[in-house]
């Protein structure tokens, strides 16, 4: 059973390997030039999937700077204590319903006022954290949340600077997927598009020049051109 689990856990690599082999096989085995190009595309796409899957973190969100929104929210809350509006804004800023993001929000809310509710919120926070899939990342969050809550009472709500700092601090707790492989693959996709376009353009030209896009026929035509009729027949057979 261990083996099954070992294989199943790495399903993204299996997808990558199967697609890659399929693509390579098509490139090698098919004689039609368009099919070769499609095989090449499958082959490249498998690599894109591989890169994207190594950058993905379970429960991670898109790497978008949440702290900026929190900053604004903290400012707004400091000025007119418009809780509902501000919180709604914050919720917008956190994409997905991941427990961690929600946790961060809760902690913020408590920071802004209702200290009585702090205990409650803390318990919900840790409760949610237990259910979270990515334990390592979540571990950090509750403890930081606790720290903030303990530190909160002495703070003045009007103290913009520290509120901003805290908001930024909490934003750092949001788990991001690693954006770098995704960006790399964006580049590779563009390269792939260019390759496909050049390849198709060549196929169009080949079709115009030879009247066929089957590799063996092309070879036969070239052999006729180079060695004359008889030799080509021998080579084709």
């Amino acid at each position, binding site marked *: 059973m261990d083996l099954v689990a070992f294989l199943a856990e790495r399903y993204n690599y299996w997808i990558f390997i199967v697609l890659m082999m399929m693509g390579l096989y098509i490139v090698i085995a098919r004689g039609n030039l368009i099919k070769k190009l499609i095989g*090449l595309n499958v082959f490249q796409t498998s690599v894109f999937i591989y890169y994207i899957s190594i950058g993905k973190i379970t429960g991670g969100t898109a790497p978008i700077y949440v702290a900026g929104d929190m900053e604004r929210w903290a400012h707004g809350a400091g000025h007119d204590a418009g809780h509902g509006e501000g919180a709604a804004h914050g919720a917008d800023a956190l994409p997905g319903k991941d427990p961690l993001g929600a946790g961060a929000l809760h902690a913020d809310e408590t920071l802004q006022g209702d200290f009585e509710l702090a205990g409650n919120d803390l318990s919900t926070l840790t409760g949610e954290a237990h259910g979270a899939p990515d334990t390592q990342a979540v571990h950090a969050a509750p403890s930081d949340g606790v720290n903030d809550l303990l530190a909160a009472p002495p703070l003045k709500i009007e103290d913009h600077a520290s509120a901003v700092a805290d908001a930024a601090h909490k934003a750092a707790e949001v788990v991001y997927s690693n954006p770098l*492989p995704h960006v790399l693959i964006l580049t590779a996709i563009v390269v792939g598009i260019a390759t496909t376009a050049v390849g198709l353009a060549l196929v169009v030209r080949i079709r115009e020049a030879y009247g066929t896009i089957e590799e063996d026929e092309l070879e036969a035509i070239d052999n006729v051109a180079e060695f004359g009729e008889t030799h080509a027949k021998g080579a084709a057979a």
Partner: protein
Amino acid sequence: MSLLAQLPVIPIIVPLVAAPLAVLMPAEKMGGRIPYIWTTLIAWTVFAACVAIFYSVATVGPISYHLGDWAPPIGIEYRIDLANALVLTLVSGIGALVFPFSYESIRSEIDPRQINLFYAALLICMVGLLGVTITGDAFNVFVFLEISSLSTYALVAMGANKDRRALTAAFNYLVMGTIGATFFVIGLGLLYQATGTLNMADVKFQLAGDNNRMVEAGFAFIIVGMGLKAAMFPMHLWMPNAYAYAPSAVSAFIAATSTKVAVYVIIRFIYTVIGADFDFASAAFAWLIAPLAIAGMFFASIVAIFQSDVKRMLAYSSVGQIGYMLFGVSFGTEQGLAASLVHLFNHGLMKGALFMAAAAVMLRVGSHACSGYAGLAKRMPLTAAAFIIAGLSLIGVPLTVGFISKWQLLSAAFDSGRPWAGFLIVASSFLAVIYIGRVIELMVLKPAPENAPPIKEAPLSMLIPMMILVAANIYFGLNTELTVDLAERAAHALMGAGR
């Protein structure tokens, strides 16, 4: 802005900006001279910048340039030490000669309406090769490599105006090249997964001599991918046709540069990125690179003997010469590496000159079949002389660069306790005597065909760059200070970083 501080980026940004402008220039006014002159001037600017970089690296030390002011390892870094300064100078130097050389040859070989596109593509091809060489970021290598490859596919296909087989050659090159590049990307992904960084020096730092199967697999993918791009035997099948049917000036440029750059990347990844201390690296030297290099040296040279087309013959000979370079690397010694670097540089010089001579013959005789070379010594004496000198250099006759690199290889082989390797190098050189000798015999001893129309010598715009390259073949054969000493220092730095 201090020009000196911005120097490393000039060889990249200047042609990159100039190439699209060349697209806008008129192709048919003044016989397409406008884009020609424009791109030639740019190529000279780039060469000047590369020489300045080379001088600065040789006297002061490695240069590191941070793109976007982001410090490495997070940002992309252009890092130039002696090894890539040498390759940079080679690529830009060949570029500076091929651009002025190409005009007459290209005008007769491609569709005249495409001349502006041709020069833009050639410039972009050069940018790609320079970028691969200059960058210190592993993924950047892939991007620039594809920039140069894509433009090369288009350039090769432009030969279709003369011979439609250029199209199938370009298509095969595209398929093989893309597979190679994708393998390279897979290898990079594995390395990135193992280390979390893409900066070349930082990959090695993070690995810290730690071996695991992910790194091994990444290394294998990178070697195979780059081997495809470098036409390492037996992954060379795209190359003979691509070189034979590409427009002649393009053959001269890519034969002298693109495979060399791929070999450089192999060296760079073995020493700077992975580090050659690993068991699997030395195993790869002993059981993969060395046997394939030897097979390439012999097999490709033997195939070259039986070619009836001079450009194809030269292409097969290139496969053999790539074998020499990799053979030198596979010794795993500083001297072997230095010999490889010297040969890399020297081979660029001789293959450039040989393909240029072939281009001149193509222009005047209209063919690159061997039969067209009969009696050429009388019909086109200067071109024939250039071909002969560069050919002798390829064989390794004293007073030429070929001798220097063979000598370096031989002494590296003996010093590393591989006398058999020295024997193999000499033996395969005799094969070069046969295939080059065959053409020389045709040119000097055979009379021209009876009914051959009288032909002129190649135009000056072609002769001068060709003669400069031939002179370089002799100059660097006499004055070894520049190449050999620098290659030794470069090898020392590469290996030193490996310790």
